[in-house]
């Protein structure tokens, strides 16, 4: 009788580690499928699609690309709504910025556990990740590994092929589905062992994002998110909010409103899509960027807002720029105003 082929589901980020973890399992005859979670904060795709300067770069989704290289299926799961609770109430706190990395990992592994149960007819036996002890300061430490296994509910069904030798035996190892002696004991931030293993497997093209693949590890993004919460006096957010934080210059000249000013034609076009929901401002007498107003813009502040937008267009040196202010459901009005000088746009306004 043929022995049953065991199946694992792998958390795929699109980076090298999860790619290697899958290859290590495939070497041992394990059948693997990938799962990838979309939180809304993923760096993947978005900014490439929006900004002009990135248009020449290949707009590939790294998780899909990795899955294709590995010859595995990939299931992408939308967790935008559920992720709000992870971000707003992280039991284990935040990292250097607004990144709740440990809670995030626990959440994703728990979603994988849930997914295995929902797809039990497909016979998945265990879960793998590309985690490496000491690789990330917050979530990938020796002390956090058992916390993730336990709090996710995965317990000993969670195998980390790249650092398994530094961890207690898991069920797949004990049952002999996986040969522990052929797993790895990587640790620390040094990437050389991974690069060497990639070479051994003949993998030459892989993504190596410096700050991971999440906007929440980015200081500038986190600052904008905190500013948004503070200005609204609420930490609620919608998908559009977190998308708009990825686009344009954000300038807050007043507690009541901020301007989101496009940095190129690609961003202008993207912001145009929001003109039904937001007040928008753009120059008529000169070419210039599209800008959205987030918050409440009183009539006496029209000139200030228009003057700032004028500053970022071709009319920045002109005596006067004519701009259009479009108020959703109320119509448009035109305003002529001198552009603010560089010094008049105060540094502390930049979010």
């Amino acid at each position, binding site marked *: 009788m043929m022995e049953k082929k065991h199946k694992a589901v792998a958390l795929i980020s699109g980076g090298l580690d999860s790619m290697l973890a899958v290859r290590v399992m495939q070497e041992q005859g394990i059948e693997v499928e990938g799962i990838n979670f*979309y939180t809304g904060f993923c760096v*993947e795709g978005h900014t490439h699609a929006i900004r002009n300067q990135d248009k020449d770069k290949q707009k*590939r*989704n790294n*998780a*899909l690309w990795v899955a294709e290289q590995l010859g595995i299926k*990939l299931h992408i799961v*939308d967790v935008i709504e559920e992720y709000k609770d992870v971000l707003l109430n992280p039991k284990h706190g935040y990292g250097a910025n607004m990144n709740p990395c440990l809670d995030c990992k626990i959440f994703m592994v728990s979603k994988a556990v849930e997914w295995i149960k929902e797809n039990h007819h497909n016979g998945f036996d265990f879960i793998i990740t590309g985690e490496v002890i000491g690789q990330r300061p917050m979530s990938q430490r020796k002390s956090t590994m058992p916390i993730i296994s336990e709090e996710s509910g995965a317990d000993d069904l969670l195998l980390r092929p790249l650092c398994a030798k530094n961890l207690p035996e898991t069920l797949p190892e004990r049952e002999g589905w996986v040969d522990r002696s052929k797993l790895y004991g990587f640790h620390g931030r040094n990437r050389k062992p991974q690069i060497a293993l990639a070479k051994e497997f003949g993998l030459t093209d892989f993504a190596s994002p410096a700050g991971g693949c999440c906007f929440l590890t980015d200081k500038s993004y986190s600052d904008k998110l905190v500013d948004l919460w503070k200005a609204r006096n609420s930490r609620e957010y919608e998908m559009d909010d977190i*998308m708009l934080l990825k686009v344009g210059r954000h300038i807050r000249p007043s507690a009541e409103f901020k301007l989101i000013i496009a940095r190129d034609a690609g961003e202008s076009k993207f912001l145009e899509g929001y003109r039904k929901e937001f007040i928008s401002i753009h120059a008529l007498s000169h070419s210039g960027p599209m800008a959205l107003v987030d918050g409440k813009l009183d009539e006496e502040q029209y000139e200030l807002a228009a003057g700032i937008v004028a500053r970022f267009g071709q009319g920045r040196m002109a005596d006067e720029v004519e701009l259009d202010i479009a108020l959703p459901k109320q119509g448009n009005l035109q305003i002529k105003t001198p552009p603010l000088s560089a010094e008049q746009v105060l540094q502390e306004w930049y979010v």
Partner: protein
Amino acid sequence: MSKQTLDARKMLCPLPVIKAQNQIKQMSHGDELDVICTDPGALHDIPAWARINGHEVIATQQNNDELIITVRVGA
């Protein structure tokens, strides 16, 4: 065989892929799905997703800023 449409306009990748994936899960082998989208990233991501999951992109049309990607559901 049934033909369905998915409106994924204004969505940025990977959302058009996720929506297509979820709709295709409810469809049968041989059915076709027209995904209407505006993010050019979908031109790359939907075919990649289809290839690895055993589906096939059988047509791609572009009307101004709108793309229509037709996926035939695999077995």
